[in-house]
Structures are given as C-alpha cells and as structure tokens.
C-alpha cells in the first residue's frame, strides 16, 4: 500500500478538526446544560430500560473527542488501500463499523454504570474499586494483546461489495480491539460524578500515548505513558546535544 502524501495531510487535518469540534461541544454541553456530558446523569434513563438519545449523543461526542486521534492512521490506510473515487465511501464505512462497536459497548457500560449506581455502594467505593480494576487491566497481558491487535492493518479488497464489506469489518475490528483496550478507563469515566472534562483529557493522553508504543510481547507490565515520557526525554536530549555542539 502506498500513501498519497497530500491525502495523509488531509486526513490528519480533518480528524483533528473533528476531535477539536467534539471537545468544544462536550465542553459547551457540560456548561450550558448541567448534567449533560456527564453520563452519570443518564443512569436514571438507562435504568428505565432505554438509553436516551441525549446519552447516545454524549457518548458519541466522547468517542469523537477521545478516540478520533487514534483513527488517523487506520483511516489513512483505508483510503490508501481504496480506489480514489471510493475513498470517502470506504472511510465512512470504516467509521461506521468502528462507531457501531463502541456504541454497543457504550450501551453495555452505561447499563453497568447504572447498575453499580443503584448497588448501594458509596461513590468513593465504586470509583476506588473500578480504579483498581482499570489499573490491573492496564498492566495485564490481555491489554497488551488488544493493543497489539490495534496496530494490525490487513489488506482490503479494492472492488465492489467486497471493498465495502472489508472497510466496514476493518472498522468494526478496530473498534473491538480499541474497546478491549480502553473499556476499563471509559467505564471509570462513567462512574465519576464530577471532573469529567479533566478525566477525559487525561484518559485521551493515556490512550494516544499507549497507542504510539511499539507492539510488545504479551505479558504483565506497566504500560501507558512510556512513549510520551520518551518523547519528552528525547527532545530534551536533542536540545542538550545541540547546546553542547
């Protein structure tokens, strides 16, 4: 697969525009309508057996804000693998597959969060327990397996229905591994009663940073901000060398 340099730039700019807009909308909704953009506020609706439209919108905005940056490379790949005339169609199918998986996962998580909310445990116990679960998942071999699979790009069909199916399935598969990797932190976000924006931002940095890390053997280890730390250390090292020279 060969990338078109101009299309690479276009994709990056478009995705960054989408994620910026999503952050602005998340922020404004949380400012204008207290309770919205706080999935905790939707627990009552969920407990009545239906995920409200508002909850769906908020969840979608969270996804767009937090996950869009990690889709830059897969989208570039889908477009580079497709005939130029079909690039937009393939991109939309990829995004549809990815989003469908996350919307389904989101519904399950909202239901789980609602169930936990009515479990009788205090907020601190719920959040503390799920923080430990998220930390354990972060260090687990299963998390590494999911992260590794997030990097997998496979050859897509170029023509006809097979091309459409491949783009959709590729998006859904990316969604499955992405949800597998990030579910614990996302669920923790749903359990918080305040500080969502800050927690979302921190989680976004973690997700993006760990996605930049090399695939690695599946084992127990701490992972997450290593790449971000190394980028900072690398820049410092290069500056020091430049000054020394």
């Amino acid at each position, binding site marked *: 697969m060969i990338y078109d340099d101009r299309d690479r730039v276009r994709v990056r700019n478009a995705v960054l525009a989408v994620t910026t807009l999503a952050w602005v909308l998340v922020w404004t909704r949380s400012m204008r309508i207290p309770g919205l953009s706080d999935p905790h506020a939707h627990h009552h609706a969920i407990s009545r057996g239906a995920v409200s439209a508002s909850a769906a919108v908020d969840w979608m905005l969270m996804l767009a804000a937090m996950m869009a940056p990690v889709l830059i490379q897969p989208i570039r790949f889908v477009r580079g693998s497709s005939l130029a005339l079909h690039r937009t169609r393939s991109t939309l199918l990829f995004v549809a597959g990815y989003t469908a998986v996350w919307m389904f996962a989101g519904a399950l998580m909202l239901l789980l969060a609602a169930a936990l909310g009515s479990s009788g445990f205090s907020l601190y116990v719920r959040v503390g327990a799920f923080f430990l679960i998220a930390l354990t998942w972060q260090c687990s071999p299963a998390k590494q397996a999911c992260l590794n699979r997030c990097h*997998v790009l496979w050859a897509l069909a170029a023509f006809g229905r097979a091309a459409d199916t491949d783009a959709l399935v590729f998006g859904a598969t990316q969604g499955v591994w992405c949800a597998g990797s990030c579910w614990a932190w996302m669920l923790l976000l749903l359990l918080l009663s305040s500080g969502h924006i800050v927690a979302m931002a921190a989680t976004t940095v973690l997700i993006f940073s760990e996605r930049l890390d090399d695939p*690695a053997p599946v084992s127990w280890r701490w992972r997450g901000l290593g790449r971000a730390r190394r980028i900072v250390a690398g820049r410092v090292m290069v500056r020091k*060398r430049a000054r020394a020279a």
Partner: protein
Amino acid sequence: MATYTRANAWNNRGTFDNKDLYWYAIGVRAMMDRALNDPASWWFFAAIHGEYVTPDNDPGKFPGWGYIPGVPKVPTTPLPTPNVVKIYWNQCQHQSWFFPPWHRGYLVALEAQLREDIVQAKGPTNWALPYWDYFGPGDEFDIPPAFTQQNMPNGSPNPLFVTARYGPYANNIVFDPTAMGLKKYPPPPNFHGVVTEKCLSNSVYTGSDSNTPLPGFGGPLTGFWHGDVYPSGNLEQDPHNLTHVFVGGSVSDTVYGLMSDPGLAALDPIFYLHHANIDRMWAVWNSNSSHNNPSDPNWLKGPAASGEREFIMPMPGKKSWRYIPKDVNSLSQMDYTYENLKQVPVVDLLALRLSRLGIRAVATPGAAAESVRNSVELVGANDGPMSIKGSGASTTVRLDTEVRQKVAHSLSVAAENSAPDRVYLNLENVRGTHDATALSIFINLPEGSNPGDHPDLLAGTVALFGLRRASLADGKHVGGGLSFLLDISAIVDRMHLDNALNTDNLRVMIVPNRPVSDNAQITVERVSIYREGPKR
C-alpha cells in the same frame, strides 16, 4: 584527512595476504572468545542487530541460536540482564529512512572494538574494516577466499569461516549474483535475481522524482506509528537485501544461511564487509553534489526524539556511544574514508523512458520531473491472498478502467512536456518463515511459457530478508509481514507501445528462486498496482 581508510577486501586476491583480512580474523577471534553477555563480544554485537536467543525470541528450533549448524559454535548463555537486552539488542533499522545511519554507527562501533583487539595483538593501529565490493572488476562478486578457508595460514581454525553460508544456488559456492557473477555461474532455471547498483542513479533520499522510484534511495519516512508495513528503501532492497539472502542461501526447507535472516546475519563475519560496502555506496551517492540526505529534523534527530529507542552502541573501555543520524550524516564528520569512492555513471531514467516511448526531447526536463511527485492512487488489486508454494503461483490483478485510462492518457501526452505516470506493483503483507527466499515477479507471462525466456516481462526480484520476524503476531510488525514496491513502468510502457494497455486485467506470476515447501508458509495478502503522477 581521515585517520582510517577502509580498503577493498579483494586487495591481494582476497586471501590472508591481504593484511586487513588477516587482522580482521585475529580481531574476530578475540571477540568470539568472549562471553555472550560481554558487550565486547562477537555474540553481543550480533545480537545488537538481531537475535534468537532470549526467551522472547528463541523459537526452540532453528533459527534459534542453539540450533545453528556447524561453526561457529554460538553460545546461548550467559544472557545479559533484561535491562541490558532492552537497551542494546535488536536495534537494527530496516524498512526505514534510518537504515543507512543506524548501520553506519553500528560499523563504527564494531570497528573500534576490533581495532582495540587488533592493537592488543600487536596489529596495526590504523586498521580499518575492509569492504566487499561485489560490483568490482574480475571475480570480485565471489566471496573473498579468506572467508572460505577452514584454517588460517598457521593451521588454526579460521574465525571467518561459517558453515551456514550456502550461496545463491545452495551449493556452497558463495558469490553475489551480479550481472558478471551470473556469467561465471549460469543460473538454474528458476533463478532470475540479479543484484545491481542501479539505486546509485536515484536522486532523492526519501520520496520520488523522475529519477527515483518510491520509496527513495535511503528509505521511507517512518514516524510514530508501527502498524504500517513499509517497503525497504532502494539501497536496502537492491543490493542490500538481495545480497543477504543470496549469500546466506538455504540448505533445506527449514535451515538457511546466517546472512539470510536479520536475527542471525551479524554472526557471519562477511556481514560487516557487506555492510561496509553498503555504507560506501551511501558515501558514493552523497559524493554527487545533488544527492542530499534529508534535512528534515525528524531524520537528523533520529527516532529517539520521537520517543523511539535511541541508537546506542557499546564502545571499548566499557563505554557506550549514543548517536543520531546528524552525527553520521557524512564521511567528512567521521574519521574514516574509503579506498574507492568513485562515482558510477548516473542513468537519466526519465530521458531513457521518454526515448523508449519514442519522444526525442522534453522541453523543460525540470518541470517534467516535478510533475511526477506525490500524487499516488490505486489502479487495481487482486481478489485475495495467494500462497507461494512449489515453483510459484499466479494471480490476476483487476484494474479500474477509469484509473487505468489515466495512466494510458499520461503515456499518450508524455510528449507534451509532461512526464508519464510511474506505475508500481505492490506485494502487500508478505508473510512466512523462510527468509532465504527471493521472489521474481513477472507480468503477463504467456500461459505455460518459461519465465526465463521473457526477461522483458520481469518486474523485479525481491528478497524476503526479515520475513520471519515481520510475520510474528506479537512482534514489532504485529504480523504484518513485509511489503515490496516494484517500478513496472518499463513493462507498462511496452504494453502501451504494443497497444496492449487497453485491458482490465494483469496477470502476475511470482516465481521463487527455489521450490518453496509448505513449511515456509509464504503468502501474499494482496497484489496491487498504483500510479504516481499529477492529479488528473
């Protein structure tokens, strides 16, 4: 004036009369006498390039280091601490624009350690690593004889001799199949690979122009992301990868020569002479004032600035050397040079192509060169994965009519001061376990015909150096395998001239250099065709 001069290994007929080779053997022996976990040992340096000896990488059979046949006897213990492994081992940069600078630093570090040992043995203080210029005159495509003798002149075992070095025809005749090499050693029927120095005609380090097919002389821009499967740079693909695979060769369906696999290659002393020649070719390319290395800070600062592993080498005296591409950007920054940095004639590929198309001249060649940059689109692809077994396999690549017509149009109007599209064949996600394989790709070979009778339909030959490591599901490539780009513009030009381009299908035949067993599990997930040219 550089202190050290790397000279031709074929001086004094490539025997131990060549003192550079004699002292190289003395230095290699001293390094081989050290333990695996000693940063000054031969084995440690080999593992810096790549290894199959740590628990994460040892497959428990060949190519595990404990299963290498014959000599040298490669130690598998004691392993360094996991932290030392993490810092130093498995650093090699391939399919990347960092391929030339990383290997330059690697050679400098090994050479420093060898020189230290050579001086200890009362050898010359200005000793420098020789290079094997397989494009040299006479029989210099043959491996220098000092590497094929089992014993040194004094009767002691020759540390330059390696059992697992089988050569391109798997008959222990080790040579590089350059055009001259193939004259001396006529190839068997399935063998179509020829090693060339045509990359020296490229004018762009990364990217393309009228004289440089993608991904460029030095390699593709590789950045933050790891899921992508990048092709090797033009220097890396030919002659580097081809020489590795042909010199290593194969002795069975499961065992191949050390040189054929990046996790074994640096165990073979010929590795460093091969890489000295690759480094020399980079310097020769740079000696043309219009051939420049990247000025992009992302290249100059190296991968460490982007949070990737830093380039770090052990140096004599238990020191270490951290370096970035900027430190090894040209020979003038280094304290060594090469005996021969003579430029080879640069072929003007665009003029050649236009001439082939019957176009006498281009009014403004510069403008024509500019127009072929950076617009790339898919023309077509085959339907699904193909398995390479036995004597080969074929597939049909379906072309999109509209995009194919764009290519045809570019060829038709090429006379109107516009370079024609460049057309590439892309083998995507090539996976398997047998690195010592070269694949020759033919386009529209007549049904039932002998590929050897149609050299004009040969798109190119690619070597599967690094295949096994790239195919590991939890390895750095997450099982994505290898990717290969072949410029097939010459074949497309001929189709255009023969009025045969009005087709929506191309037949692609892949012929391995030796029969491929089922064990090798070589698959190609997609065969695609791309055009590169102005947006239309």
